[in-house]
């Protein structure tokens, strides 16, 4: 499903000077179809950068990322965009909902650039995550927990092969956090998507059977 080999990413030095900072250096990583895994990592250890690379919104310096049989690192940007639209779902810590769009529209946009919009499926999934009565609300009219569920629905509505979740419960309190995580895992299972979650929150990590330390995985010298 997801295979990574010799992946490297460094950023140019800040204006103050210094050498290029290598942030990601992952010799090997793999995730099977429908598999769910969590990565444990400190703040600033490069987890977000790692997910950005997998999502193709950042270009790797070198190495290989294969998603569902497609070698993404050999694709041009526009092709990476299409791959992301068709095969990936992304759940952000800050949800990143589009504030000017309704709940239903936000979820529709999760399909807009990949397979094509299916309003019925968007409604159905919103019903599944308990927001069937909030379709025409705007994000700022929802609670944080509800917003998070919109983000989950948006990430899954296009039936992605792989869902990337970057501290998805970081903005929720403990009670909601637990429920939210369960929801994400269940929906991923129902939709047959693999899940790769990164977090520094032990409470969250404890719920996963398969947890890896990002520090071990990532050999970039900090």
């Amino acid at each position: 499903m997801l295979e990574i080999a010799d992946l490297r990413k460094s950023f140019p030095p800040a204006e103050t000077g210094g050498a290029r900072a290598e942030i990601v250096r992952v010799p090997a990583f793999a995730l099977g179809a429908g598999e769910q895994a969590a990565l444990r990592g400190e703040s600033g250890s490069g987890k977000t950068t790692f997910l950005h690379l997998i999502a193709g919104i950042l270009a790797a310096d070198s190495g290989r990322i294969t998603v569902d049989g497609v070698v993404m690192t050999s694709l041009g940007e526009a092709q990476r965009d299409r791959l992301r639209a068709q095969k990936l779902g992304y759940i952000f810590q800050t949800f990143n909902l589009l504030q000017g769009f309704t709940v239903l529209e936000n979820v529709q946009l999760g399909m807009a650039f990949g397979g094509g919009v299916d309003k019925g499926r968007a409604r159905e999934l919103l019903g599944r995550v308990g927001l069937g009565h909030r379709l025409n609300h705007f994000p700022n009219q929802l609670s944080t927990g509800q917003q998070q569920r919109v983000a989950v629905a948006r990430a899954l509505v296009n039936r992605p092969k792989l869902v990337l979740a970057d501290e998805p419960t970081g903005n929720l309190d403990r009670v909601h956090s637990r429920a939210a995580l369960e929801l994400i895992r269940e929906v991923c299972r129902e939709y047959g998507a693999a899940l790769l979650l990164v977090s520094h929150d032990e409470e969250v990590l404890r719920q996963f059977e398969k947890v890896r330390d990002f520090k071990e995985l990532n050999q970039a010298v900090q």
Partner: protein
Amino acid sequence: MTLPLLIYRSLRQHALSTLVTAGSIALACGLLMTVWMVKTQSQEVFTSTNTGFDAVLGARGSKLQLVLNAIFHLEASPGNLELSDYEEIKKHPAVRTAIPLAVGDNFRGFRLAGTIPDLFTTVEYAPDHAFAVRPGGAFFKLGAREAVAGSFAAQQLKLKVGDTFHPYHGLNFNEESMHSETYTVVGVLQPTNTPADRVIWIPIEGVQKMSGHVASSANQISAVLIQLRSPAAGFALDQLYNKQGNRLTFAFPVGAIIAELFGKISWFDQVLTLVAYLVAVVAAASVLASIYNSMSARRRDLAILRSLGARRRTIFGAVVAEAAVIGALGATAGYVIYFALLTGVARLIQAQTGVVLDVFAGHPVLWICPLAMIALCALGGVVPAMKAYRTPVAETLAPVS
């Protein structure tokens, strides 16, 4: 499906600036179309307005003034000519019809034009259009103190058959210069959409012999309106009166003289057109600026769309399309402004000259201008679209902390 949604939501989110920008485009578009149409329409209508006459004979002076006075009932008469001049040209073999005209009095600012009933009975003011009075009215009889009111004059002065009035001396209304004669309205003309609508017609000797007019005016008239048997004859008469003679002016052809007037004032509509073009450029620039200014606020939304799989060129296209839609909204509202302005200008022109512009006339500018405006706005949208195109997704979504 997605593009309209993106555009619609973005316009909604920036409703105020959308409104202001579209409004300025509407103004620019409406102004441009109005200037253009007033120019072409009035040129067309004025140069084709001759109330049925080919030429005007009058005192020595400016042909334009002669035509304006005798055909359009504007300006002062350049002077008088003798009744014998009228008798002479009337007998000329090249002249089909000659109608004398005497002016110099008014009723509440509307001119009294002295003439003979033949004007109504033998002249068509436009091809296949003869003068007619409204039911219950009649043309005046020579020698009687009777008047026939043009439709616009009658409407403004609320004159109807049977009403009486006193003429006032001069072309401008002055309470103190009332003549003692009493005239009775015997007819109101059907609208002709020509300057004749703004005139009150009375028998010619009424003007000539109005109490208080100098005695010599009894044998003088202001102009002779002429229909020729053939256009070629006009050149012969031009030769006769303008080149050989030096006492009279023969204004021919009427349309060409009015066209000259438009030539003289062409700088005016050039200035207006230039202003309108500038307004158009400013409007397009305002589209550019308004979208560009909102760009930093929209960076995050654009990056989110990219994270959902939107390509750079989709984002670029959406911004350009949004600019074009603002242009289209503005252009549509521009038609409203156009009709409002043109109707106003047309009313003004009708009140001042009796000439009626066709507000619903078609012209290529009516689709070229809106399309050009939309294109211009889309072009203005390219600048912010480039900025949108370059939005870095990863950095925008996860700002370096």
